[in-house]
């Protein structure tokens, strides 16, 4: 028996490959890390320019246009609301509760090349203690296959037992699964609160990633907002920064997310992923309802317009955690 003759079983290989690609596509930037750039300083003038760029005074923001007037108005109103509605106060012993419904796309390819696409739903319930160094509690429903686009896929999923894996997790500092980074992978205290500098800082972190420079900046903003833990001043700055991104527009006036209706603001992309990132804001209150990714072209059995990933969040303060 020669080990060099062993191969990864073909059927597993195809399916794992498909799952991995889906996973990578679903969370391309979950673990984003600022890219280190090396700058060579030769003269005092260059140093001055570098200082301006480093301080996010000079960058991609501002001079290439911005969101449409209507989208900017919704975003700027949301920013005003965020500033005026103070963050809920979490007293010692209490928890900030972030409840969310999440939908993720799933897909599988069989050895004969036939593909199946469907959507999973996962309910998340996060309890953040008043002192973040205390124990956090996270209740996860696991991914439950919920939406099918044809009967054969439903049958396939039922046959293959894609069972959810419910979890109850506890960790100080939100370091679930031993992750040292904690809950939010971005250092929020380091982000500028001035919208123009904030957007330059975002561009610097996302440049070269995602399907387009501006699309990726909006994805960064949506990723951060959906954590549910962004402080009001930064939330306001993020809305205003989104209003300065070229191509950002109102994509749907009556967008329904998890039973709540709001205005969808997004950016139509021409990149390879054929998806559009949107954030959804309650027009009446200016509060964030959630975010979603919309398919702009059919993919397998999923028609164009399908929300292949979305998160609706709700935050509140509670006295107890499970």
């Amino acid at each position, binding site marked *: 028996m020669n*080990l060099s003759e062993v191969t990864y*079983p073909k059927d597993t*290989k195809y399916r*794992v490959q498909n799952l991995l690609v889906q996973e990578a596509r679903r969370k391309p930037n979950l673990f984003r890390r600022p890219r280190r750039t090396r700058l060579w300083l030769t003269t005092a003038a260059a140093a001055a320019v570098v200082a301006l760029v480093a301080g996010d005074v000079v960058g991609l923001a501002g001079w290439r246009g911005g969101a449409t007037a209507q989208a900017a108005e919704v975003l700027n109103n949301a920013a005003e609301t965020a500033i005026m509605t103070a963050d809920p106060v979490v007293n010692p012993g209490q928890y900030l509760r972030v409840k969310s419904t999440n939908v993720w796309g799933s897909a599988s390819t069989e050895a004969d090349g036939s593909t199946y696409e469907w959507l999973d739903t996962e309910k998340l319930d996060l309890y953040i203690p008043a002192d973040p160094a205390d124990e956090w509690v996270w209740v*996860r429903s696991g991914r439950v296959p919920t939406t099918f686009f044809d009967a054969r896929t439903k049958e396939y999923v039922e046959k*293959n037992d894609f069972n959810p894996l419910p*979890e109850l997790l506890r960790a100080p500092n939100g370091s679930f*699964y031993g992750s040292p980074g904690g809950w939010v992978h971005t250092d929020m205290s380091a982000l500028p609160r001035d919208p123009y500098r904030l957007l330059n800082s975002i561009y610097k972190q996302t440049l070269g*990633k*995602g399907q387009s420079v501006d699309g990726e900046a909006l994805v960064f903003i949506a990723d951060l907002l959906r954590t549910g833990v962004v402080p009001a001043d930064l939330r306001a700055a993020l809305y205003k920064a989104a209003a300065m991104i070229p191509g950002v527009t109102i994509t749907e006036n009556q967008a329904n997310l998890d039973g709540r209706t709001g205005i969808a603001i997004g950016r139509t992309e021409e990149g390879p992923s054929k998806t559009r990132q949107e954030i959804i804001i309650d027009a009446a209150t200016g509060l964030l309802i959630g975010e979603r990714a919309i398919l702009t072209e059919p993919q397998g059995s999923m028609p164009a317009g399908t929300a292949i990933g979305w998160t609706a969040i709700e935050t509140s303060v509670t006295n107890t955690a499970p």
Partner: protein
Amino acid sequence: MGETDEELWRECTTGNADAFGALFDRHADAVFRYCLSRCGSWHDAEELVSITFLEAWRQRDRLRPERDTVLPWLLGVATNANRNRARGSRRHADFLARLPHSDPRHGGHEADHAEAVASRLDAERAVRELLETTAGLNDGERDVVVLCLMNGIGQDEAARTLGVRTGTVKSRLHRARAKLAAMNRDPEPVEQLDTTTVEARLS
């Protein structure tokens, strides 16, 4: 698929999931063999392959391929993933829950099943026997035996996988061989491969 590993990897760092899929396709077999020779269980090895690639995607900003293969780096990720297997499986639990395990009992003809099951058990037994022969070695020596002798990875590549100098790999191999010879258990190298043949096999 004429793109080099380095080109595909650069695509990965910009978030291109399809490039990642192409790299998986290219290296899954070699990574699987390595995982199997690490844990000795077919089922665990299948899981370990997924964890390795999930971790590779997660860490994709860290790698700058120096030469044109990412395999040594992937094997390094697999080495760490195997050491943290319990923790890694928890971290990726929701992914692994969706993971199909190949089951020779499903689909195909009866005779093929029997054969598939038999060859799978053969492979597991062979790996376990090989791993038993390394019982007297320390961790560092076992690493190079598994990489170079069981998987036919070149010494330079093994050095990059383990993050040590080639000289260290050479001396560990030398010590391991001496110990194995003393126990009269020198495992037959899978293939005598130098770096160029390893790379040729990858392309």
